[in-house]
């Protein structure tokens, strides 16, 4: 492992992200939150969770939140992913936001979700092989 000038530790394994990511996982489903937490840990990141869009927005209200990445589920009670993404972008949140959709979502719904302010969209189920190349390419972009 080497330490960069910014203090971030770069791991040379190809199975991890290029920088230690701080991730917010937004999903109403307990199993999905646990799975995504483990995936983020496995690729060298750290994570915090929120049970719905409203919690995700509240975390950002005081202006101190600083996430590299937000994994945003689409269908959630209280505030869904589309509304939460729109709100976060209105609040000038610049984190990468990856929308997480289900197979039940059609193309129109996915397009609307993207247009709310996502950087990318992925369909469940997520796993390391799916998310790692995407995160690395978004970081390179």
């Amino acid at each position, binding site marked *: 492992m080497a330490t960069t000038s910014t203090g971030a530790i770069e791991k040379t394994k190809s199975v991890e992200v290029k920088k230690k990511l701080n991730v917010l996982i937004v999903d109403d*489903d*307990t*199993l*999905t939150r*646990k*799975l995504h937490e*483990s*995936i983020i*840990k*496995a690729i060298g990141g750290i994570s915090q969770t929120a049970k719905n869009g409203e919690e995700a927005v509240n975390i950002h209200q005081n202006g101190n939140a600083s996430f590299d990445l937000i994994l945003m589920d689409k*269908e959630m009670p209280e505030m869904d992913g589309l509304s939460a993404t729109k709100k976060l972008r209105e609040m000038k949140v610049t984190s990468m936001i990856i929308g997480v959709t*289900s*197979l*039940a979502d059609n193309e129109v719904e996915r397009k609307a979700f993207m247009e709310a302010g996502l950087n990318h969209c992925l369909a*469940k*189920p997520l*796993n*390391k*092989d799916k998310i790692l190349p995407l995160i690395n390419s978004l970081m390179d972009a």
Partner: protein
Amino acid sequence: MLGLGVDRLQADINRLLTSLFHQGVLDEQFLQLQQLQDDTSPTFVYDVINIYFDESEKLLRSLRLLLMDREFSDYKKIGLHLNQLVGSSSSIGARRVRNVCVAFRSASELNNRPGCLRGLEVVEHEYHYLKNMMHELFQLEQQRLLAAGVRYPM
């Protein structure tokens, strides 16, 4: 002697998993779950599968209550429950359960009550088969760990 016991149990585990993949009960996503298990989270698969069981059983109970109600007409709620089941089954690699949930969902989208009742029976059957197989797998794994002299709370 101890080594032979561990080897035999590992062979039994491999045989069971091969069979479950061959039958289409599990898919590649289950392997992804196993890859997330490590020394820092040694019971990860067991924990995730148990969350799946708890949540699925609540959803299945709710589906049964809805469909048993003579006045039932809330197909949208059936659809929402099934979306959750499809999602969680996909997340753990429970392919057959996921597929029968998708078929059940099609019946609910057509407001087909007899179709929904049949769909529910099929989902319950596949779910219980999966649960029994997972319990067998976890029992073998626990025996293997004990034989290898490893202590993990399970």
